[in-house]
């Protein structure tokens, strides 16, 4: 599904190398997790994949179903099936959540040459999905993320994911700022989307999210590289011993 080869990335503004040769393959139907200390490059990886400005790829490649995504605009990547759940979802005053979602769904459909969703069909689908995430009608009407609590913002991200039905989902620190109940709700939303044709890359600091979203593969990232890959037990190891052990092991 998602194949990242020897990816080197630096900041455009300053001459600072953030990613120093990341290799990673996420297969369809699998959940991969990336753990790592602050500043290891986890979030940069998610931004580079989704096409945010300010980063320069100096070497390597990233493909989604064999297509090079690094040359695509962010909207083209989205239409190709990539989705990033933001660590800090952006507030957009003046744009209604519902309008935003319908525009996004239909823009993607249009880009793929599919028929646009009618208003009534869209309403039916979104109501059902919002209900599962305990998002009420009021929250759908409000401007995107404006005045939302941390938990509401993250649930809103998952609702977008559910509506857009991407092939490859990247979740950037989705657990940050969530209490246990909210985390469970978000995790249930993610788990409901797990399917044979869909890949997940879950970026997190802590093991606790992975109790709810069970990964197939866990990677440890440090200083711009993946330094260790293993099964779910690797996450537990980090939880118990911290990153220092693994780092010294590699050194």
């Amino acid at each position, binding site marked *: 599904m998602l194949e990242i080869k020897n990816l080197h990335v630096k900041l455009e503004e300053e001459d600072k190398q953030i990613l120093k040769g990341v290799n990673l393959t996420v297969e369809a139907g699998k959940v991969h997790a990336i753990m790592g200390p602050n500043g290891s490059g986890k979030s940069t990886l998610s931004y580079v994949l*989704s*096409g*945010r*400005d300010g980063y320069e790829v100096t070497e390597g490649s990233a493909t989604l179903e064999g297509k090079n995504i690094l040359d695509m*605009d*962010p*909207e083209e*990547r*989205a*239409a190709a099936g990539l989705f*990033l759940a*933001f660590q800090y*979802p*952006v*507030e*957009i*005053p*003046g*744009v209604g959540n519902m*309008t*935003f979602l319908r*525009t*996004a*769904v239909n*823009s*993607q459909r249009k*880009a793929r040459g599919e028929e646009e969703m009618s208003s009534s069909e869209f309403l039916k689908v979104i109501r059902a999905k919002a209900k599962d995430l305990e998002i009420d009608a009021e929250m759908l009407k409000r*401007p*995107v993320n404006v005045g939302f609590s941390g938990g509401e913002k993250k649930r809103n991200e998952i609702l*977008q994911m559910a509506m*857009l039905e991407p092939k490859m989902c990247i979740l950037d620190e989705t657990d940050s700022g969530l209490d246990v109940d909210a985390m469970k709700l978000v995790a249930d939303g993610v788990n409901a989307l797990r399917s044979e044709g869909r890949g997940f890359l879950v970026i997190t600091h802590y093991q606790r999210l992975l109790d709810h979203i069970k990964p197939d593969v866990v990677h440890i990232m440090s200083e711009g590289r993946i330094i260790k890959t293993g099964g779910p037990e690797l996450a537990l190891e980090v939880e118990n011993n911290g990153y220092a052990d693994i780092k010294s092991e590699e050194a």
Partner: protein
Amino acid sequence: MALPQAKLDLTEERIASLDLPKGGWSDAARSDALSRLRLMGLPTRRDEYWKYTRPDTLTQAEAPRAAVFEGEDTPLFDDIDRLKLVFVDGVFDAEASDDLSLEGLSIERLADSKADIHWAKDLYGALETSGQTPVHRPLAALNTAFANDGLLIHVTGKVSKPVNLIYTHESETSDAMLHHVIKLDAGAEMTLLENGPAAARFNKVMEVDVADTARFHHVRAQGRDHERRAATHIFARLGSGSLFKSFTLTVNGVMTRNDVIVELTGDDAQAHVAGACVGDGDFHHDDTIFITHDAVNCESRQVFKKVLRNGATGVFQGKILVKPGAQKTDGYQISQSLLLDGDSQFLAKPELEIYADDVACSHGSTSGAIDEEGLFYLRSRGVPHGLATDLLTIAFLAEAVMEIEDQTLADEINARIEGWLLRRRG
């Protein structure tokens, strides 16, 4: 103090190019206005309130040419049940208009009103005169003296449907002057819609007297003709517990100066003045607002948003004056511009002058580009760059458009804004 010679010449030249209408109740007001005009002189660039807007094309004797816009637009407000009153190049067109009758109001044409006694006699030029202090508005005095056409609307009850003044532009050289007087009796309510380019050059004055507890809603759109020029004035006086809400959309226009002068003279009154404009190239738009609080517990809001690109210029001069004793005043003013490129400019002069100690007044003015974070967020969800920019632009204007109470009217205005954006996206 004697006027500078250049100003004197300019003023006399303009006066000489016009005929003073005569006969009937308005004669005295017209001759007073002419004296006022001669004392003030027409504006020049040196005048404090004309620093950011060149007045020359608005004051010169001959109107600059303006091509007539040929477009396929469906007329604005077309789906709304309304009383249509049409002016072509500033002349009332009875053929094209509905009958001048509607329950709750009486309408008369200024040009036809030649009796010696008329209800409008106490108002015509009176609110304009009052609005000349402390800031001179010579183009309005010029209008009071010379406007030959316009409507006298007396609202006695709740009017069942909006009155729509449609200003059609047919001649490339038309130089129109209209003066409307609107009097709302206590408890009366009406919605006034205005749309269209009006003329190559348009000078319009509207005096609105809103009696106690009366409600006046106003929505206007100033036409797509790019070369048109306009100087408009609204003078409003508000009685206690009354409401005055005015919204203006300006799309294109090489020169627009909109003055709104509101006096809150009765307690508990509310005045909301809002404007949204979108323009590019040699578009120049100036909103000059003056709100005077002269009563207790009144609320005023000024919400002005401008979207500018390719060298367009936006001007905002907004003032809140709180007179002694106008306690519990709640004044709000915001003026913002969204600059879609580096060539455009926004010039803002917010002013507060407060002589009461128990008031809440806030004002803010900003100028900025599209929010890059928001743009990336939308694009990451699959919304293409152009459409995402448009969504954010419409969102930027939303606070102003939301001042329109009636959702159907607000939707019509939004559709016009979307149309402009769509045409520019190509």
